[in-house]
């Protein structure tokens, strides 16, 4: 085994240990087949490596373990299970040179936040950070290298700040040290070329200023309340006028920074929206707080009352607290999403085992550098890779918007986010998977179904109506009191002051944010908050059959026909590897091939969706698919050259029997002669009957299957209505069918696998992609669901409906408060005391109600078990 990992400063101890390991390695290779790596916790498929009675999946993991052991840092493994970052692929000298640019003086200066010759400081973004062990190890960097003075981790932002002595260790060596222990910093090109550190200029000042705003508003709130209390307690007129003026002036002094600094965001936002001739929800808030301040200042100066400044500061304080809470919730969601294992997506890789090369499926999170992947027709490439196959076609439309496939040749670099077209491609990953990249792809505007999210639309429309309503009411109140100008102004301003659209500003983001988080823990991943609202409107659900209602993994496969010669079996196995269809995948799973199938050349691969595929293996033509597909081709292509009757007869018989087949069948023809067919008896997922019974009362259920109608009877049980089922559907048929349902006024959810149903998923109102085993990630879907959670679909929809009810209830609470407040205002009864009680109370009730109702509802409905 080759051990040429670059070690910044290899210690003798490490080198010595490497030599003594080699014997153990061979002995252990045979024994540990199904154990988990001591370092990264991943299953050790095939050859594994041991040292100190501990098993490792690769040399990289073992190396990190040894490095930690020699530095007495093994606590790393005690803190949390599976702490290590998978270290797949040994870093070669070639790869080492990719950090050369860090030796460049200008790059270095940009990356360093501070440097005085003996002390330098820098911050890196490490996307691999995921547990407390990461934190512990990264703060012990000074034990691994003396040049590091200290290191501090910011867990939520996945950052580490490192202070080091540039005389002892260069910036490049710091990066290499991090890479060696499995935490390669994310050094984006723009990160290196633009500002010294993008992350520092990005989110943090924002949070910092939000804290400052809250602090100042809170301080003013507390103190103005103290100044207002004497009047509340003694009653108007009882207080010494000098004292009242003094308290009033103090309140204004305290409230000014709140108006000018803490509330500035609302003025800016509403000014922006007014400039675009548009009213958002911040407009009524801005009008309200401005009126509140001006009226208070006026009344204080007048000596009428001591003002409403406690309400004013309290309102701003609570609104900002709501904002902070919301930001924290979304931060936590973003943290989970950026962590690679958030999505249940997997990828096929080839690994060497004792019995030859084997194809296995590993979760995307375990995919490292140097992995040999097989990406099939229509699948998404998860990481930047180098093509191993001779030639292939990649569609970069997700990345560039250009839909014409690009031809790539062996050795070319393929970028993550591309989609393979045609024959499956083998490639070696050269970069880590970027989950945040996949997430950003998912959120790409090209896949937004509406220009604006449903929530934004609703809240903006509401904001506009609310503003108009409040202004109108203020006008009416003014006119009603008119002969008495003082009372009229009083009533009108009171209306502007007391009306608060907090139900929409606070309730919806809070409830939906919580719902998104709760769904995530239950294995149902929604694209964004408006998908929750979209789910509640669904009244038709379309299911795909194969791979969705049936479980591709537990299918029973049977072969009927002539015996195939060993080389034919190998050809077939090699050809099957290229298809993504669930049926052919089930056959491929039971085929055993002796030789490495990757050695066979496949050409002219062509897949006709829902029919089958054809290709040439080592020059032999191969047709796999439905009876019609295989039979008609045999008639066409061989009718002239094959004069012998048997072939013709066979083909005709095949065509005639295609209508009444038992179970799903996949027929095989090699070199134009019919071999036989595989019968796949689908195994339905458990819990379907219960699910359908729960869904039926409120939803129309449809089935769109690309396969034959062999399962018609079994499915009749589930769908009851024959008209709700359609078989022999091509992807285009499915899309058209979804569109037809939408045109008939239904709101359609499509449940299917991400690849063959991509078009229908995109067309539907809510496209739910079922994720199982392989890389079925499609940016066209609105939700990804772990396949074993399908039985809970009705519960999920139910919870979405419940969340909407919570929002509506919160809205009515707010309406209730507003009615009380507005009644007082119109009648000219609004006193500082009423407003001081009413305004904070309504905000606090709405926040408390939505949060607790959403979490409690999830617990009662058993959507979340352990979530707080």
């Amino acid at each position, binding site marked *: 085994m080759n051990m040429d990992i670059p070690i910044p400063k290899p210690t003798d101890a490490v080198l010595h240990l490497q030599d003594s390991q080699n014997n153990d390695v061979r002995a252990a290779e045979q024994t540990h087949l199904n154990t988990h790596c001591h370092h990264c916790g991943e299953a050790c498929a095939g050859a594994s490596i041991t040292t100190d009675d501990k098993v490792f999946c690769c040399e990289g993991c073992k190396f990190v373990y040894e490095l930690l052991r020699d530095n007495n840092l093994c606590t790393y493994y005690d*803190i949390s299970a599976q702490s290590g970052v998978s270290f797949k692929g040994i870093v070669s000298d070639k790869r080492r040179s990719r950090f050369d640019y860090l030796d460049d003086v200008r790059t270095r200066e940009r990356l360093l936040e501070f440097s005085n010759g003996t002390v330098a400081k820098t911050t890196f973004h490490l996307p691999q950070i995921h547990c*407390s*062990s990461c934190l*512990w190890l990264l703060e012990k960097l000074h034990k691994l290298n003396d040049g590091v003075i200290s290191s501090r981790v910011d867990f939520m932002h996945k950052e580490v700040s490192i202070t080091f002595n540039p005389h002892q260790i260069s910036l490049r060596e710091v990066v290499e040290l991090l890479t060696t222990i499995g935490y390669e910093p994310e050094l984006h090109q723009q990160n290196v070329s633009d500002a010294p550190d993008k992350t520092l200029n990005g989110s943090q000042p924002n949070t910092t200023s939000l*804290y*400052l705003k809250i*602090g*100042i508003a809170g301080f003013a709130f507390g103190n103005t309340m103290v100044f207002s209390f004497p009047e509340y307690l003694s009653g108007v007129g009882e207080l010494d006028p000098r*004292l009242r003026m003094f308290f009033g002036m*103090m309140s204004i002094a305290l409230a000014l920074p709140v108006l000018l600094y803490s509330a500035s965001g609302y003025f800016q936002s509403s000014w922006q929206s007014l400039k675009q001739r548009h009213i958002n929800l911040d407009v009524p808030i801005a009008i309200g707080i401005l009126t509140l301040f001006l009226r208070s200042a006026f009344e204080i100066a007048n000596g009428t009352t001591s003002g409403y400044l406690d309400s004013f500061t309290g309102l701003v304080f609570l609104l900002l607290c709501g904002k902070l809470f919301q930001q924290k919730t979304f931060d936590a969601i973003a943290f989970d999403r950026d962590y690679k294992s958030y999505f249940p997506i997997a990828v096929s890789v080839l690994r060497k085992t004792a019995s030859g090369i084997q194809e296995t499926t590993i979760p995307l999170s375990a995919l490292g550098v140097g992995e040999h992947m097989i990406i099939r027709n229509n699948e998404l490439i998860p990481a930047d890779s180098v093509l191993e196959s001779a030639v292939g076609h990649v569609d970069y439309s997700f990345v560039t918007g250009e839909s014409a496939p690009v031809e790539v040749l062996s050795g070319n670099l393929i970028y993550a986010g591309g989609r393979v077209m045609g024959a499956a491609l083998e490639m070696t990953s050269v970069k880590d998977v970027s989950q945040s990249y996949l997430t950003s792809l998912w959120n790409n505007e090209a896949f937004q179904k509406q220009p604006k999210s449903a929530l934004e639309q609703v809240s903006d429309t509401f904001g506009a109506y609310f503003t108009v309503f409040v202004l109108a009411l203020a006008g009416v109140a003014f006119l009603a009191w008119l002969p008495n100008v003082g009372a009229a102004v009083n009533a009108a301003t009171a209306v502007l002051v007391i009306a608060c659209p907090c139900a929409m500003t606070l309730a919806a983001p809070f409830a939906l944010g919580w719902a998104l988080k709760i769904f995530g823990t239950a294995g149902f991943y929604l694209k964004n908050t408006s998908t929750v609202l979209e789910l509640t409107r669904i009244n038709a659900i379309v299911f795909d059959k194969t791979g969705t209602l049936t479980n591709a993994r537990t299918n029973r496969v049977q072969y009927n026909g002539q015996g195939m010669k060993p080389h034919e079996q190998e050809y077939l196995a090699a050809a099957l590897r290229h298809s993504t269809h669930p049926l052919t995948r089930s056959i491929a799973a039971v085929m055993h091939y002796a030789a490495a199938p990757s050695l066979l050349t496949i050409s002219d691969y062509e897949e006709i969706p829902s029919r089958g595929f054809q290709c040439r293996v080592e020059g032999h033509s191969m047709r796999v698919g439905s009876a019609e597909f295989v039979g008609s081709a045999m008639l066409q292509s061989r009718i002239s050259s094959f004069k012998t009757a048997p072939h013709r007869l066979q083909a005709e018989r095949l065509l005639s029997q295609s209508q009444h087949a038992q179970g799903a069948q996949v027929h095989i023809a090699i070199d134009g002669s019919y071999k036989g067919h595989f019968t796949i008896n689908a195994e339905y997922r458990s819990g379907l009957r219960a699910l359908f019974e729960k869904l039926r009362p409120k939803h129309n259920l449809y089935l769109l299957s690309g396969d034959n109608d062999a399962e018609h009877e079994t499915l009749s049980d589930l769908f009851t209505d024959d008209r709700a089922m359609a078989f022999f559907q091509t992807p285009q048929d499915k899309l058209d069918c979804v569109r037809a349902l939408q045109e008939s006024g239904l709101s359609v959810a499509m449940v299917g696998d991400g690849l063959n149903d991509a078009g229908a998923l995109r067309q539907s109102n809510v496209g739910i992609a079922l994720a199982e085993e392989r890389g079925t990630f499609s940016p066209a879907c609105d939700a990804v669901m772990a396949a074993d959670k399908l039985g809970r679909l009705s519960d999920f929809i139910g919870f979405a409906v419940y969340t909407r009810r919570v929002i509506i209830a919160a809205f009515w609470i707010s309406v209730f408060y507003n009615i009380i407040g507005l009644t007082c205002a119109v009648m000219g009864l609004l006193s500082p005391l009423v407003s001081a009680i009413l305004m904070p109370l309504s905000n606090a009730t709405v926040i408390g109600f939505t949060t607790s109702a959403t979490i409690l509802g999830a617990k009662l409905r058993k959507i979340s078990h352990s979530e707080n």
Partner: protein
Amino acid sequence: MATEMVMILVGFSTAFALTFLAAFIWAVKSGQFKDSTTPAMRMLVDDKE
């Protein structure tokens, strides 16, 4: 007389309270609120040496 007393006392107490506000502003500016997750975890993983 009592009014003047209250005014003076309120002045003092507000000035005193302002020092706390200043302390808070300093704390935010110096980054103590930047990351509230990591210190909680760091405390639990620190080893005994």
